[in-house]
């Protein structure tokens, strides 16, 4: 393809609004609107409108929180790790991945506030100087959460923004009026000389290393919310690496799905080719085996140790009320991807999408199975209780998935989804 044809193809979505796009936006807006309504009910009436109760003090909101932080590792993996290893095939995929990271973090960040009893006072967790000389508790894993996630959001936003600068300059030239002025401002005076290109590449390399470290610390800290406590089957040393590995796993799955969707919707077949899907598929296969290893390690240890309180939770998951969920999770996270991707004859974009969808479902169930059965079966058996999410929690959950799609729909109209300059750097990549 000629350079002009490439630019034309990648920037075409920005200039027109199609009917399917509008319809999708409307559907998403409706779901987000329903979620906002549910939130308002919760704010006005109290947390009692959820399904939470004694002893299940954490539920769907925390499950979603961990899930979305996990998805955010898509960008970190692709952009950061593949940048550091100089994998050329990453180029058309980086911005898609980085956008997934930023948007899923924005959504994840809602939940710690949403699940608070007194939401308007969430800022007390931030160490702001105040008249009462009160600091937050630095020993609390929730404080570490706040530090880690805000750092990650800031870093991801920058990591997404920096490589958009050359594209903003190009967009400024090709648009007119108000749009052109906005793009021009966002391009920070980019003229594309050698010095600036070198600076950009160097900045991205440094940033890739930094954001990798931040991402690992973030999901470890989220894991510490559980593993630092003494609740049965939460107090496990494997949680930090388990969550990081699971995050990379679900991040790749989300990326494959988003890529397949964009390729279809924006007709990017020339840019997002089989090579990219194949490589991501192989990464997904690797992570599915790693996931199995960590999961088997965790459950085998719990079972062999036979500690009383842990076994109550263990049995609930393996053979009790949550057994159908547990084995569905194993099927979705291991068997489906292992077969559909492992057997090369079966591997194609469709089966990759099926595997990815399965992995996203399986990973959501995994988060659910981490949070809920443990809280239902506390140390003192007399305090046990069952958790059923209410319509408020379910509506908000659905709304956040719609919000993710909505953010992506809007993003694809403002910025080319494949970094034009990255593509032109290595068109055969």
């Amino acid at each position: 393809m000629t350079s002009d044809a490439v630019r034309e193809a990648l920037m075409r979505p920005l200039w027109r609004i199609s009917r399917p796009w509008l319809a999708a936006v409307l559907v998403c807006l409706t779901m987000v609107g329903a979620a906002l309504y549910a939130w308002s009910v919760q704010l006005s009436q109290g947390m009692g409108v959820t399904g939470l109760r004694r002893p299940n003090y954490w539920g769907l909101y925390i499950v979603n929180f961990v899930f979305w932080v996990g998805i955010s590792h898509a960008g970190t993996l692709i952009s950061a790790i593949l940048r550091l290893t100089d994998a050329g095939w990453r180029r058309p995929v980086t911005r898609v991945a980085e956008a997934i990271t930023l948007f899923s973090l924005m959504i994840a960040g809602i939940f710690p506030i949403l699940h608070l009893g007194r939401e308007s006072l969430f800022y007390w967790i931030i160490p702001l100087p105040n008249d009462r000389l009160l600091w937050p508790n630095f020993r609390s894993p929730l404080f570490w959460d706040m530090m880690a996630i805000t750092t990650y959001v800031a870093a991801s936003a920058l990591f997404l923004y920096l490589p958009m600068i050359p594209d903003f300059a190009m967009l400024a030239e090709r648009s007119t009026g108000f749009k052109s002025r906005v793009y021009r401002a966002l391009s920070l005076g980019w003229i594309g000389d050698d010095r600036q290109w070198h600076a950009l590449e160097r900045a991205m390399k440094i940033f890739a290393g930094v954001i990798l470290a931040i991402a690992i610390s973030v999901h470890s800290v989220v894991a510490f919310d559980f593993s630092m406590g003494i609740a049965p089957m939460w107090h496990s040393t494997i949680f930090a690496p388990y969550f990081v590995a699971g995050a990379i796993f679900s991040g790749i799955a989300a990326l494959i799905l988003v890529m397949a969707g964009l390729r279809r919707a924006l007709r990017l077949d020339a840019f997002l080719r089989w090579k990219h899907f194949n490589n991501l598929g192989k990464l997904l296969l690797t992570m599915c085996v790693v996931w199995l290893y960590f999961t088997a390690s965790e459950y085998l240890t719990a079972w062999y140790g036979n500690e009383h309180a842990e076994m109550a939770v263990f049995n609930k998951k393996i053979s009790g009320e949550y057994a159908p969920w547990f084995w569905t999770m194993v099927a979705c996270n291991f068997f489906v991807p292992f077969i559909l991707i492992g057997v090369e004859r079966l591997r194609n974009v469709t089966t990759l999408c099926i595997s990815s969808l399965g992995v996203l479902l399986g990973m959501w169930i995994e988060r659910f199975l981490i949070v809920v059965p443990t809280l239902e079966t506390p140390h003192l058996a007399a305090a046990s209780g069952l958790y059923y999410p209410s319509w408020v929690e379910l509506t908000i959950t659905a709304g956040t998935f719609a919000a993710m799609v909505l953010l992506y729909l809007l993003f694809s109209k403002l910025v080319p989804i494949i970094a034009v300059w990255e593509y032109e750097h290595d068109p055969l990549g």
Partner: protein
Amino acid sequence: MAEETRTQPTRQPHSWGMAIDLDRCTGCEACVVACHSENNIPTAGPEQAALGRAKHWLTVDRYYEGAFPDIKVKYRPVMCQHCEEAPCEPVCPVYATYHNDEGLNVQVYNRCVGTRYCANNCPYTVRHFNWFEAKWEAPLDMQLNPDVSIREAGVMEKCSFCIQRIHRGKIAAKEEEREVQDGDIQTACAQSCPAEAMVFGDLSDPESKVSKLAGSSRAGLLLEELGAKPKVFYLERAK
């Protein structure tokens, strides 16, 4: 003229604790009712109770042994154990719960933002959350204890060892220029127990009734192996 000497006010430090004799407890739950009325705990109502929202700072857990007709029931009143190394304290991100210098695990309602992490980390599951604004149907709204604040929706609460009674006892002793005597301060539950199964007092005073009971051969701690160092001693005949 000789200066008048004042006796020292209340002895510092206190270390408040309880002893509960499970061989005396009949499971009548008078203590639960007393706790409700002393601490302004609203009843949840049948629908909310069915959803698991019944709020009792003190629960009397029932354990059944054997099968009919040889069935035995054991009762164990469980409230906040005011652990010396409470797992709930380090995890609160805003310091709404901490250990005061009299050995109480205090819950500061005004500071709590409602993350509910403390409740998850309590192995005794004695912490409760205010799911809605508290409401009392008339005329129950006229029997509220003015010494105890009404908690707003969204904050955690739990047994405080009737801290308002502790304060009242210490103030009374100070006014009378004497020390707090064992038996001056009684928690609502201990006061209402018809079997005198619950004793509250100062564990740092070796002569107090609670200290003597805590030293008995029948005394043990709940979930002692977790190392939280609870201060409620349960007395029962060893099997």
